[in-house]
């Protein structure tokens, strides 16, 4: 009998909802573990979950400096897609997509993954060709993609301005129908509960303050809740990667931490039924089940750990929104927030053993980490368990930059703010 089901809801309702158990325990840290995962965000939690589920490694602790899921897993705009240009990325994100498609069942937790599609709007013939290149690249790897013409787009998103008089008229778009959105917090909580029920200790309010070492080898961590030893220490700290690596004595990384803002409008009756991106700027939008329009744009464009954005980007994002939806000028922005993005030099992630003995590194998710959550944890768990990467994350090494094996989907080079 699944812990969560319509039946259990009814049963618990009859007993006044008094018998629900905590979604995860609140254990004190043990003296040592087989694996410590630093970072109780989506990736850290899914890593712990797959370590337990796929590799039988359950003597695992996830250390979170604040509250579980306080990083980007709870701050993103929840898009899930695998519509990449370069095969290394497409294969990895498609693996993620397949995990997403069964995730609610796997976790017995409704993460509300809804495959309402992701449509990239094209505004010039050259851009349409560019999208066709990407769509065809996806199709040649078995991933769904299709081109939509203007009348199909208008039917799908009636509120969109597709008139020829627009400053950047819509000429068509690349649609991935299996793309969609999910409830971000539920992903963190679902993985946390799944890992917890398999024996993983999830330890909140436990900040890593240093690394325990035996020569070069990492043998554990010191934390605000004491020293904890481990055979393997895995980092999944996203925007804090630079900071934590400095604790391990590695001063520089091919990463910059940037702030990305996101916005939500007041709750509205359904008006946008897909994820939509603007081709002549940086803008994307979808509508949550609650009715809020969830949207965002470009990075603020400078190093930041502040989780707060600046005003010019707010104006820019809203202007782009109205270029697509001139009817929404009276809709109101309800809340804005900022997330830290660990931007790499080619816009693609890092999942690897090392760089120190006993250490494993998962970072560089730029602003696309949410959709990667299942595959990131899945591949990282594999890498930790087997001390070598899975085929899916083999290209995502740390030394690829230096060797010229860059995976640059946007072709922008080593300027992180442009990825």
């Amino acid at each position, binding site marked *: 009998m699944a812990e969560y089901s319509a039946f259990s809801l009814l049963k618990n*309702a009859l007993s006044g909802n008094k018998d629900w158990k*905590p979604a995860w325990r609140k254990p004190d840290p043990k003296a040592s573990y087989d694996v410590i995962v630093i970072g109780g965000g989506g990736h850290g939690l899914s890593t712990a979950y797959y370590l337990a589920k796929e590799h039988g490694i359950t003597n695992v602790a996830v250390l979170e400096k604040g509250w579980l899921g306080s990083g980007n897993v709870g701050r993103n705009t929840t898009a899930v897609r695998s519509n990449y240009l370069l095969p290394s990325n497409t294969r990895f994100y498609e693996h993620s997509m397949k995990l997403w498609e*069964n995730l609610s069942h796997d976790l017995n937790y*409704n993460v509300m993954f809804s495959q309402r599609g992701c449509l990239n709007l094209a505004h010039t013939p*050259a851009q349409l060709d560019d999208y066709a290149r990407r*769509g065809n690249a996806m199709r040649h790897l078995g991933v769904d993609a299709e081109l939509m013409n203007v009348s199909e787009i208008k039917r799908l998103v009636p509120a969109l301005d597709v008139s020829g008089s627009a400053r950047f008229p819509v000429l068509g778009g690349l649609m991935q129908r299996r793309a969609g959105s999910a409830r971000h917090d539920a992903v963190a909580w679902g993985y946390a509960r799944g890992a917890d029920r398999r024996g993983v200790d999830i330890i909140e309010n436990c900040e890593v303050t240093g690394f325990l070492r035996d020569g070069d080898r990492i043998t554990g961590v010191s934390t605000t809740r004491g020293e904890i030893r481990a055979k393997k220490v895995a980092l999944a700290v996203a925007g804090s990667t630079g900071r934590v690596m400095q604790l391990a004595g590695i001063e520089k990384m091919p990463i910059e931490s940037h702030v990305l803002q996101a916005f939500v409008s007041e*709750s509205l009756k359904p008006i946008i039924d897909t994820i939509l991106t603007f081709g002549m700027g940086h803008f994307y939008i979808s509508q949550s089940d609650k009715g809020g329009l969830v949207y965002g744009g470009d990075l603020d464009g400078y190093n930041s750990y502040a989780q707060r954005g600046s005003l010019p980007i707010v104006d820019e994002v809203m202007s782009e929104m109205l270029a697509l939806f001139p009817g929404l000028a009276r809709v109101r922005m309800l809340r804005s927030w900022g997330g830290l993005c660990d931007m790499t030099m080619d816009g693609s992630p890092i999942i690897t053993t090392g760089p120190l003995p006993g250490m494993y590194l998962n970072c560089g998710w730029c602003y696309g980490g949410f959709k990667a959550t299942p595959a990131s944890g899945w591949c990282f768990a594999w890498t930790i368990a087997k001390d070598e990467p899975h085929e899916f994350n083999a290209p995502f090494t740390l030394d690829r930059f230096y060797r010229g094996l860059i995976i*640059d989907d946007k072709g922008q080079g080593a300027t992180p703010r442009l990825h």
Partner: protein
Amino acid sequence: MSSRRTETGGRIDRLRTIRFTFDGAPYTGHAGDTLASALLASGVTLFGRSFKYHRPRGLLAAGVEEPNALVTVLRGDVREPNIPATMVEIYDGLVAVSQNRSPSLAWDISALNQLGGKVLSAGFYYKTFMGPVIGPLKGTRFWMFCEHFIRRAAGLGRAGTAPDTSRYERMNAFCDVLVVGSGPAGLMAAKAAADQGARVILAELEARFGGSANWSGETIDDAPAADWAGRLVGQLEGNDNVRLLPRTTVWGYYDGNTLAALERVTDHKEVAARGEPRQRYWAIRAGTVVLATGSFERPLVFPGNDRPGVMLAHAAERYANEYAVLPGERTVVFTNNDSAYRSAVALKKAGAAVVAIVDVRSDVSSEMSRLASEADAELLAGHAVVATEGGKALTGLKVQRFDLTSGALSGDERSIHADCLAMSGGWSPTIHLASQAGARAEWDPGRQAFLPPQPTQRWIGAGAFTGSFSTAEAIAEGRAAGLQAAGGTASLAPLPVVEAVPGDPDPAPVFEIKAKGKSFVDFQHDVTAEDVRLAHREGFVSVEHLKRYTTLGMATDQGKSSNVPGLAIMAEALGKPIPEVGTTRFRPPYTAVSIGSLAAERFGDLKPERLTPMHDWHIENGATMYSAGLWYRPMIYGLAGETVEQAYVREAKATRESAGIVDVSTLGKIAVQGPDAAEFLDRVYTNMFSTLAVGKARYGLMLREDGLAFDDGTTWRLGEQDFLMTTTTANAGKVMQHLEYFLDVIWPELKVTVTSVTDEWAGAAIGGPKARAILAACVKGTAVDNAALPFMGIVHGEIASVPVMICRLSFSGEMAFEVYSGAGYGTRVWEALIEAGKPFGLVTYGLEALGTMRIEKGHVTGAEIDGRTTARDLHLDWMLSKKKPFIGSAMMDREGLIASDRLQLVGLVSLDNRPFNGGAHVVEELDEANPHGSIGHITACCYSPALGKYIALALVKGGKARHGTRAFVSDPLRNRFGPIEIVSNHFYDPDGSRMHG
């Protein structure tokens, strides 16, 4: 419906009657009314429906924090949803409708949701709707089926799609002192700062300045507080250094003391005056900010606290005193603190019967007892309200004896007949802006409230914002803050004298009365105290988990009234003090802000349009324009009945047969000048420029630092120290920044200046066998023969009396010339060239023909230099100088960049004589059903009139080694599959004999 309007009093203009409709029914009110006060005066009690259970709801508040009474305001087809009725000023012809109900506000079918009861507890949706693991509904299908209905049920108002024709405007303002809030503290601060000569902006989110002075009933300097405030505002209005902004919500506190505000300029008017925007977005850079934003009264949490007729005590007082409306005839006051006693007295004075004051505290001060008698109210100390009665309006309530320390209820329930319950759970300072500015709030156990943090930016707090709830304190702190902000010294002048009802500012620490029934914490989102406890039980105990799991504080009011009670209930469940549960950080905006106002002037005008000097000529001569970044360029000059392909084939053919001319003004142009200009270019380009003779041009390639190709173009040496660099249209800005960066940061010792001159020059490229003859016919002052103007030579002359610069270079593969003139004379030179070309059969051609000829010639553009290719990939390795280092030279030979399986530039020929599509892929084995095994993709394609075939350029793995082999084009997106031959990218005139002539 009976009129609840009192005979006298209030700040409304009884001589002006205003007519409006709500849900189609006509109503009247007076100038100065909000939609809420006018409807309340007409006896309306039901204003909205809650989000989840669709419970009937009335007014909770009188201001911006209203969670229940949300309406949609209509202006023709243009809809503005989710506006609190308390913030809508009525005007003649106002049309407002209720939301989130069907078929009507009174009879809402979704109210059946309440029957779901405990099944629909917090987070229930995480535990169900997952559907079967196998079968046709596996995966995400079942959830998406359920979600369809959930989405329809959710949401509040409906957004419109009709374009909003209103204008929005942005203002940048600078001031010494920005005062936020115009209650007694804000007014005193503004006055004090203004008297010091500071430039002051005073922003008030409501229509009336004065804040609590408008309804407190207090006396200041022997005048009613409202009159005192009015006098002060009058004085401020007369000051040149003061800007008063009514209806202006300061909603964001950003870095560098930059604040964002929204002024609602004409929302309260039937018709905007000429030139007035609907809303104005203020970006204010303030020297110092005085935060005098006041405080919010908190509701108490008890069963039935959401019944229409239950409202905040100060709101009831405010409706009576400011709007002359009695929220009820028989009122009961329910409180944990002294402030509600003043409300009781005010309601009594306004004409309501105050039946009882229910106070959770058993020992009420003698002053409060005296106030209870003054209100003629029975004082039920040590009691609590445990239930309310009524349907869509309150009819009565039940009270029971209450023990403050244990929270226990005892004794018999007593029923009291009442139609209004005015509650007060204490006050929370409005610290949102201070929190946005970057610091954490601190819990004050006396006030039972979060007080503002130490400033992290330049602001000073005053009045209730700081937890000083009395008007006398507000006045003193306001003046002190204003003086300090303006850099003045303490004033010795006497402060205004306040006569106010006394009271202890500290409430009893009681937030919830635990009794049977639904007790609401977040009214709009239907989060109950039981939901908070369920979150606790399931481990969602940190404040952020509480919010996210229950949706507490996530509604349109963003928890303005619900945050602290929710925290308190969680703290009690945890057995921890409130500050250990934490507070959430407030984020912009303070209240919701229209997206139109944020776009402001860019609404309808997102980005500038860049037009070449000859733009109008192209339009007049039948060009179809193509949008390229911000530029518009001719795509074709089509003749009647021609398809695009027919047009570009005709244009390209004519160019190769006689001559063609194309506008190339969009190319990036950068003047590179100075003693070290040649040395600089040697470092920037992969090939040598210092050896270039004056009067000659050379094709150059730039790499990025990482060794990948960056941009290409020709650079002309106009003088020993004077070069004109051209870049691709798309990269003009990037190349400029690249050059500036190196000159400023890396090589400051080089004496070089770079200047963008893209817009200074008009450019026309004329090419084809007759091109030279055409130039000879119209150019004066120079010869253009082979001796004077060899390949890559530059001459200066005149066309139509306009000085021109002509360089012989070719993109098309024909003998061709680029003619540059001052931008202002571009059309004159262009027309002269066209005229001179007439006898020679000169045609104008657009981007399509340009592209066709460059594909035939095998030249690369941005489609191939796409940020992922190297010089070698594009067969440009001949340009990589071995004699000198250049940007990218050290990095370009890394293993990944010289691998043999990299994508390399090739040509493709269609073997089935059908057209290609850009973005099609190339495969070795065709599999239309399951496309796989891509070895590359098409970057550009066309019909080649020169070859009589459909051809393409492509990037193919190990491409050079595949010349002469067969493969297939595979384009599943457009269902185009077929055989191809892979060939060299140089289709046409590979030895350059035509070009060199």
